[in-house]
């Protein structure tokens, strides 16, 4: 049976049905609709004012690739200029290939690229070293906790280096839905209160961040990348299977199968959550070490690094922050270089 005609231009044969509305569209019309929606999100949400210098967090994956591509198309209309910022977490066998993809993209699109490495910023701690450090605790390694916080800091630093006024990341609707599910399952009222909007306006010296793809579902992002023949890196991070987010992701897949609009329903719920004032995070101040935005004495990145340096990686995770106030732990802090392989304990 031949494909039906495109519902929009009625000339070409339809190439897909939009997951959201079931409407049949040809490739050109779909891409145009996708770009129009992103433009609408940015304009209606007043996310990127004209004249903004925008740092795009580029990981080489499909979301950031599509984001960079769409923003590049829309840049003349919005009056913004783009810089690509890539973060090198030091995950062997994964990040190198992804960075190669980013370099190719930067070359093809002629956008300036800056690479920021963990090893350089955080005193030699790469993600592999962090993983080794947290490996022996018997519980899950919680690599993603470290990586997420440190990556945000690295992105911010990279954006400052290029003189950006805004930071954009490629989170899509599925990411937002997974986040709200995950936060409820873990009881993270602070993050629930903070999340849900289109991004943060940037308080206390932090750059404003936003997520233009927030209302686009993951399927459409993949389809767009496919139709525009974008070159991206599509493998999963080596540490991803251990993450709690995996549970939320599986649940989301099932929910989407039961009801296709579940993803946007979750995003709508997240936007409308009303949490008690006591549960909301305290107004942000500045970190005592690095001066970045922090709701406590130490920002999360400094707290995590402190824990790593003291040899107690779980210090800043969960309820263990009390230990941060102690000074002079028995072990020597190691300010430079990752730890060498740990001695095997003998019994």
């Amino acid at each position, binding site marked *: 049976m031949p494909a039906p005609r495109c519902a929009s231009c009625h000339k070409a044969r339809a190439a897909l049905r939009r997951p959201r509305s079931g409407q049949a569209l040809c490739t050109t019309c779909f891409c145009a609709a996708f770009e129009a929606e992103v433009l609408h999100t940015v304009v209606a949400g007043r996310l990127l004012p004209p004249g903004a210098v925008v740092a795009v967090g580029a990981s080489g994956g499909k979301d950031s690739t599509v984001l960079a591509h769409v923003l590049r198309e829309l840049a003349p209309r919005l009056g913004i200029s783009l810089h690509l910022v890539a973060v090198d977490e030091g995950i062997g066998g994964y990040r190198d290939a992804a960075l190669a993809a980013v370099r190719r993209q930067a070359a093809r699109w002629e956008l300036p690229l800056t690479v920021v490495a963990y090893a350089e910023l955080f005193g030699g701690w790469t993600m592999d070293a962090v993983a080794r450090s947290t490996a022996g605790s018997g519980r899950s390694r919680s690599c993603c906790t470290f990586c997420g916080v440190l990556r945000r800091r690295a992105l911010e630093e990279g954006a400052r280096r290029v003189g950006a006024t805004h930071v954009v990341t490629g989170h899509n609707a599925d990411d937002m839905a997974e986040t709200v599910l995950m936060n409820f399952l873990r009881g993270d009222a602070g993050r629930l209160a903070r999340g849900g909007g289109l991004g943060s306006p940037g308080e206390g010296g932090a750059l404003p961040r936003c997520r233009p793809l927030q209302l686009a579902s993951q399927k459409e992002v993949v389809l767009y990348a496919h139709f525009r023949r974008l070159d991206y890196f599509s493998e999963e991070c080596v540490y991803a299977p251990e993450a709690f987010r995996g549970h939320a992701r599986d649940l989301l897949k099932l929910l989407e199968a039961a009801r296709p609009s579940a993803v946007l329903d979750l995003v709508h*719920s997240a936007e409308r959550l009303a949490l008690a004032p006591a549960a909301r995070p305290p107004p942000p101040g500045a970190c005592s070490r690095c001066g970045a935005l922090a709701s406590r004495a130490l920002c999360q990145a400094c707290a995590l690094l402190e824990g790593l340096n003291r040899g107690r990686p779980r210090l800043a995770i969960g309820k263990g922050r009390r230990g941060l106030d102690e000074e002079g732990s028995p072990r020597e802090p190691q300010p430079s270089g990752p730890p060498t392989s740990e001695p095997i304990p003998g019994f």
Partner: protein
Amino acid sequence: MLWQVLEGLSQDSAKRLRFVPGVVFADEGAACGQSPEDRAKTLAEAKLVLQTVGFPWHIVALEEVFSLPPSVLRCSAREPVGTEGAYKAAVDSFLQQHHVLGEEKQSRPCPQHPQGRAGPPTAGQTEALSRLFNSVKTLTAKEELLQTLRTHLILHVARTHGYSKVMTGDSCTRLAVKLMTSLALGRGAFLAWDTGFSDERHGDVVVVRPMREHTLKEVAFYNRLFAVPSVFTPAVDTKAPEKASIHRLMEAFILRLQAQFPSTVSTVYRTSEKLVKAPRDGCAAGTPGPRCLLCMCVLDVDTADSATAFGAQTSSQLPQTQPPVAEAEAPTVSCCHSGMGRAQHCCRMEADPRACDPRACVTAQLCYGCRVNMKDLVSGGPSPAREQAGAGLGLRLRSPGTSGSSLLQPSLDPLPPYILAEAQLRSQRAEAEQEIQERLLEAEDGARPGATSAEQAHEDGARPGATSAEQEGADGL
């Protein structure tokens, strides 16, 4: 829970409860597709339990929703409670619950005659109910519809018999599942009402959940240790595959996660305690907006083109070339949407205000979650195209029009009449308000005496008080 109430009311309890309870049992066999013999058997078992408990009891069948008055959907003002603590409470015990009984309480005197219904529901009503439930495509929407109708029915019973509170037996586990399910259904704005301790959105009758701190496991152990008999009836999702509905999925997911991380349920419960019954920061204060027709919460939808999830689904952006098929419908739907952000008035064509599509009118009065459920309500045969093909005018401007097949016209007929009547009334009232507003503005510029008779005829059904005031205003000029 019944047992706990019994204990609390007994002479020898330390802190004696001071209310007079009644028990309501809702028979939903028709919705679940049970045969009349099974239903009779369940009813007999339930009656046995209820008689031994000793409280006045009421058995209502779900078919009675077809004879509910539209006032059920209105939020009445709360009557002032008496100064002492003597208030009545209606205790709700229904299917799959762990009913309470004790053999040692046999010596209690029999209560006054039980107030059952007049008689079993008529075959016509049963047939109408099954038609309603068969016209719903997905199990998720069925479960939601069942819950809504059950709530309305119990509310009605409580109001007619003068009860001011309804207690339900939801345990901690069930509330945690309910919270996550509500999230997934788009009801994030109303979580505090759906899963909190007290739910007072109906005005005079308050729904309370006293069992919300007990986990299901505790309840099971309690029932076993105290030999509490329970009545088992199949529900609408019994024996359904796990992926059939969002409710099933969530329940299975949470129970599975609980096995791996034993603190899951209590974590979700603690988080639910931190929710408040207020709109999100931006839109606080002021008069609360219009309420949803079905769930009676304040509406949580934005204007159509905002940069939110709702806006994304109802965006009026069309691709460059407008499809000719949808063009005739476009003005209708777009003016429906343009009005959505303000008062709830359905779209008004220039000529005839009553020619608007009834489905769009009803949909405009629903909250986000109820709208998504309503989309699954389609009458007639199976849909030829995708599931969303039949959704038509309700929400999506990009209504798919595959050139070959015809658009299914979704119909609201199977819905119980009280819902349709209330929807009609609200939309008429809103239209009348809108007209009054417009007339007032024009009257300031210059009187238009010719229009007054038309207004009066239009507003007769809605607000006689306002009409006379308006008349005076027009005459004065």
